[in-house]
């Protein structure tokens, strides 16, 4: 990736919001480009947390494993989102694992580089606070959803959230390319693949959504939101 492309990517990254071009160019110089094939691991839960990443292309799933080996997918991320801040900030091991969902390119920043950046550009601390604050908000909401929503409600909520993050409006409705297998989807809402599959078909039968392979079209956003406990 050329330096200008890296700078362009970093300009879009909320973490580096507020930095002027000169500072961004310096940040870009500290990055190492890394590529990952679909299904390959970016880091494992428990690994030393020695780098921070900005996604240039492709998508990543972040997941945790329970002692019993059950997987819980926390979030899926794509460009220009970032990952890996937590371990970097408290100088500890990775709290979750990250895997490429498709051919993925990342800009990697070593911990020493990030620390250097935080000290020389205080605006980055602002960006990190926003980013970690946002992660915390998301996790708190997920934890609360497990208490207050049933499985169908959680599936509905996931669809509503993806619609607002990445949905594409058309005359048909709001179209989502989840980019997730049904297994991963099940792991995000804490249900079995079978149950989640049944729920998606039930939502389709009620006319809330239409399923087209890995794509979902939301037909009745209001009804779906109510089912998700959002409205």
């Amino acid at each position: 990736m050329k330096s200008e492309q890296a700078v362009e990517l970093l300009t879009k990254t909320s973490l580096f919001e507020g930095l002027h071009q000169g500072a961004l160019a310096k940040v870009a110089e500290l990055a190492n480009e890394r590529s990952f094939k679909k299904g390959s691991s970016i880091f494992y839960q428990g690994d030393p947390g020695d780098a921070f990443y900005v996604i240039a292309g492709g998508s990543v799933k972040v997941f945790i494993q329970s002692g019993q080996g059950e997987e819980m997918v926390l979030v899926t991320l794509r460009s220009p989102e970032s990952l890996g801040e937590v371990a970097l900030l408290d100088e500890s091991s990775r709290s979750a694992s990250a895997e490429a969902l498709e051919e993925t390119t990342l800009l990697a920043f070593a911990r020493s580089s990030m620390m250097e950046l935080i000290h020389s550009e205080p605006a980055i601390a602002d960006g990190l606070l926003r980013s970690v604050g946002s992660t915390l908000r998301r996790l708190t909401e997920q934890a609360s959803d497990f208490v207050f929503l049933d499985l169908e409600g959680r599936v509905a909520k996931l669809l509503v959230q993806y619609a607002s993050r990445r949905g594409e409006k058309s005359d048909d409705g709001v179209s989502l390319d989840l980019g997730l297998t049904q297994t991963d989807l099940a792991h995000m809402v804490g249900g079995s693949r079978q149950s989640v599959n049944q729920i998606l078909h039930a939502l389709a039968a009620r006319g809330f959504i239409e399923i087209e392979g890995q794509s979902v079209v939301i037909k009745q956003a209001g009804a779906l939101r109510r089912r998700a406990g959002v409205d």
Partner: protein
Amino acid sequence: MLNAKEKSALLKQAPLFAECSDRELSKIAGVAKEVSRAAGKTIVHEGDPGSAFILIVDGTAKVSVHGRTAAQLGAGDYFGEIALLDKKPRTATVTAASDLHYLVLSAASFRIALKAYPTIGLRLLKELAGRVRSLERSLTG
């Protein structure tokens, strides 16, 4: 009226500021305002843009979501630490249940403190990172 030391001591109770040094706390306390509201007054509205951190000094407040009472807050309780950072809409309405005396740290004031002591940012980040970890662990049950 609280003096600077008393304000610092109160702020230190909030986990967000638990890692801060006395000097850093003193700076934050210096920009935090004291407010009093009579019983029945709304402190924050659900859905409003909210970017202040609020810590209750005295009195009780009612927290409601979608019109339903969700919690009661009293002296020492606080809310809005994340709103301070990401300025997202308030997730609940908070009303004074009794005459309420509280500290307000606006996002703008907080940034003043952050600029004066950039290390505050790092401490906060460390504390938040710890919370992310606990939440992640709780999700795997």
